[in-house]
Structures are given as C-alpha cells and as structure tokens.
C-alpha cells in the first residue's frame, strides 16, 4: 500500500516523461527514411546476430549547417534579454506586493495570477491586435502626433521580447514575492538606523537576500523561453531565429524526425545546466 503511493507516480512519470527521452535519443541516432514512421530501425536481427548501427549523421548535420548554431545562440540571446526585462518589471511589482498590508497582498497576488488562468494563446494573440500596422498602438501614437507613419512593430524581435515578458511575468513575480515576503523588516530598519540610505539598504540587504527568488524566477522564465514556439510563430518575423521554431519545422514541414530529435536532444543538454541551477534555487533534493 505504502509502496504503491510512490510507485504509481514513478511508473507514470517514468513511462510518459523519462522513457520518451530515451526514444528521442534513439531516433536522433537513426537514419531518416521515406517510410512510415520516417526513420530506419537502429537494431537489426540477421542470422541470430543483432547489429546496432548508431548514426551520428544528424548531429554532424547540425554542426555543419550554420542555421542550427545560429538558432541556438539567437534563442539563448532572446530568452536572456527577455528574462532580464521580466526581472526589471517584475521586481518592483513583487516588492510592492510584499510590502503591502497583509489583506491587500492576497488581492494583488490574485491580480498577478489571474491573467495566467486566462488562455496563454489568447493573451499572445491580443498583442497582434495591439502591434500590427493599423493596430491599437500605432493608431494611438498617430493620434497623439508622436509619429507620422505607422511603425513596424509586429513580426520583429521586439514583439517576441514583449510576448515572452508578458507571458512569463507571473513566473518571475511569484518566486520573487516568496523571497521578498520572508525578508525580515527589522534588518531594513537596522540598516537605516546605522545610517544607510535607502539605495544602500536595497543594494546591501534587500537585493542579496532576495537572490534565491531572482535565480528561481529567472530560470522559470529563461528555460521555457529558449524553446518557445507559439510566441515567435505569432509575433516574430521571418528573420527571428528560434530553435523551437526550427524543431517544429523539421518535424511538421520537412518530416525529418531524426534531425528534429537531434535538435531536441541538444536543447535538453544545453538546458540541463539552468535546470540544475533552478533545482538548487528551489531547495535541494525535492
């Protein structure tokens, strides 16, 4: 009975979360073929002898075509810049919530989480209407006389940044709030009593003590943003290179399952480090 409690989730997640990665690795080492499914089996039985052919061709292909390396770098850059912007917007919000009266904290937190409950897809879609050529923002700026002709906002990297920041802001605010609300107010008073100015107090007390929240929040934004597909597909342009879109196109357009798998495996390897950092920030072994 007791065993079953741990066994059931271990089996389910083992089969449907962990095992898929083994299959992914296997397919990434197999040869593409025009077949159903479109790859050749790794192992073959002939005359009672099993031959396993590991084919590194897909990985070599990833290294040779600069598109892939550029896409990984560009994804990492877009995700990093977006994470930084999210942190800059999220920190003051989390700070104000953590310093609010206990009764209001709940309401403000609710306001942060509420958009998260409405559809992510629809919230990204909302930005198309705002950013497009004859969209809300351009009309507003024209009406205010700030610009003479509509700006090109949609299908740019800027729009992708906006979409990521907007979507992932709650993921940044919640861990920041968690560490800022645990901050002992007496420490701030002590710093002030000892003559520290507010900025000095912030830089030497608040900021260092909220570090776990900063690290956790940043990783929660950065890691999924690297592999983001929907946001660049809806808001990005043809020159917005992101590895999530590359993987999607390899699979759905080129039907090249082995190369798509290799792209995914490299992505997981690259993301292993930030995921390890996140697990540490969230407190060790759990």
């Amino acid at each position: 009975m007791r065993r079953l409690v741990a066994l059931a989730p271990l089996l389910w997640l083992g089969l449907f979360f962990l095992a898929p990665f083994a299959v992914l690795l296997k397919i990434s080492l197999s040869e593409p073929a025009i077949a159903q499914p479109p790859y050749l089996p790794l192992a073959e039985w002939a005359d009672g002898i099993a031959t396993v052919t590991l084919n590194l061709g897909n990985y070599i292909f990833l290294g040779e075509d600069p598109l892939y390396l550029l896409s990984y770098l560009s994804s990492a850059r877009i995700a990093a810049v977006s994470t930084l912007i999210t942190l800059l917007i999220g920190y003051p919000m989390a700070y104000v919530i953590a310093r609010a009266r206990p009764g209001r904290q709940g309401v403000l937190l609710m306001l942060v989480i509420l958009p998260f409950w409405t559809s992510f897809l629809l919230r990204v879609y909302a930005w198309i209407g705002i950013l497009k050529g004859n969209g809300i923002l351009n009309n507003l700026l024209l009406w205010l006389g700030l610009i003479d002709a509509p700006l090109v906002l949609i299908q740019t990297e800027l729009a992708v940044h906006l979409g990521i920041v907007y979507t992932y802001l709650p993921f940044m605010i919640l861990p920041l709030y968690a560490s800022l609300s645990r901050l002992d107010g007496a420490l701030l008073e002590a710093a002030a009593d000892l003559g520290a100015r507010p900025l000095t107090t912030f830089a030497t007390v608040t900021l260092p003590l909220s570090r776990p929240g900063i690290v956790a929040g940043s990783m929660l934004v950065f890691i999924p943003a690297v592999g983001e597909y929907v946001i660049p597909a809806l808001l990005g342009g043809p020159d917005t290179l992101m590895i999530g879109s590359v993987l999607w196109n390899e699979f759905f357009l080129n039907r090249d399952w082995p190369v798509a798998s290799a792209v995914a495996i490299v992505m997981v390897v690259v993301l292993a480090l930030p995921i390890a950092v996140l697990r540490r920030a969230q407190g060790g072994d759990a």
Partner: protein
Amino acid sequence: MIRLAATLGFAFLYAPILSLVVYSFNESRLVTVWGGFSTRWYGALLADEQILDAALISLQVAVASATIATVIGTLASLALARHGRFRGRFLLGGMVTAPLVMPEVVVGLSLLLLFVAMEQAVGWPAGRGFVTIVIAHATFGAAFAAVVIQARIGALDRATEEAAADLGAGPVRVFLDVTLPGLAPALVSAWLLAFTLSLDDVVIASFVTGPGASTLPMVIFSKVRLGVSPEVNALATLVIAVVSLATGLAAWQTMRTRR
C-alpha cells in the same frame, strides 16, 4: 517611484486583455478599426461548428487529464513529503520538477516518438488522438498539481494524523478521514490548474494528436496565424468572463468561510 513602476506593471498585465474584450464588440471585421457596437461576432462564434466541436473535445480532454494529473500529483506529493528517504526519491523529485520548465516542443516530440514506438512494439496506443492527448496533458499537469499539493502538505498538521492513528485508525482510514479533507482545497486548485493548462496547450497537442482530434487551441492557433479574427476576440471575452466569474466566486467563498 516604485509604486508607480508596480502600477504600470499591472496596467501592462491587463491592457491587452482589456483590448480583446473591447474589440470583441466591434462591428468592423478589421478588429482594430472601430465600426460601432455589435454582438455579431458572438453570433458568428456560436454558429462556427469547427470551433464548437474543438471546444467539446478540449473540455473532455481537460476533465480527463486534470483528474489523472491530480491523482498522480497527490501520490507523488505524499511520497515526497511523507516517506522520508526511499529508493527513487531523487528520481521522482526530478520528474515532478523537470516538466514544469521543459520546453513544450521537446515534451511534445518525445511523447509522440514514444507513442509511435509503443504502437510498433505492443500495438497500444493504436493510432493517436483523444487518448494520447489525455496522457500527454495528464503528465505535465501532474507536475503542476504536485507543486500546489506539496505546498499544502507542508502546512498540514501531522499531529491530527498521528492522533487518528493512535486511536486505532488504519493508514487508509487516516488518509481518507484526515489527510484528504485537509488537502481538499489544494486538490481543487491543483485540478483547476491542470484543467486550465490542458485547455490552453497548443504545442504538445499538435505533436501527439492524430486525424480527427483537433483541440480548441489548435483551431484558434491556425485561425490567428492568418491574422486577427473577431470571432477569436469574442471567444477570448467569453473565456475571460468565465475565469473572472470563477475567481470572484472562489474569493467570495474564501472570505465567507474565514468569517
């Protein structure tokens, strides 16, 4: 200064949502050009068979996957919080954390490859569609459910469980009569979170689905890739109305029980 920044932050969160609602009542097809007040897009939405069919599939997938996710999330949380050190603890901890951040394209592709490999090896699942989407959603839903439930388990008073056990209740009885009622609010939140995530997913469903099983987000995604669509604005407004209503009711309920 910092309050102003925070206020702007909240405005940033809500302005796009507000724009969806306002323009859903726009007469003009050109979404962002105001052509007068109209509810015609709600009529068009309710007459759109493709959207209605997809919505029905999505709701069924969401209910089924959220239920499985909550059961697995509860068991995983109980094991992690109550069983101390056991074999597989590190593995289980990792497997309930990693899906939270793993890029959707990776989860979707790897699950699809698993389903294809399983079908070749054991003949199940035969083809892809409803069942495979439910399994995929239940898996990442379980990770999110576990986060919610673990937070609540940490806050539960173990003394009550110990008292029940001292008074002669068996482990199953203790679980059903003490632990489960204590966890109930978290179970509801976890279920709702898994339900919402399932109803929202476009990437993973696109990978693991088969012919004939298009979920609502998949249909919306294919519509909005071609540009803005006033019907989608109407749909968004309905979603926002339902979510706000449900949140309002939940808040009211919490305040009432606290008094």
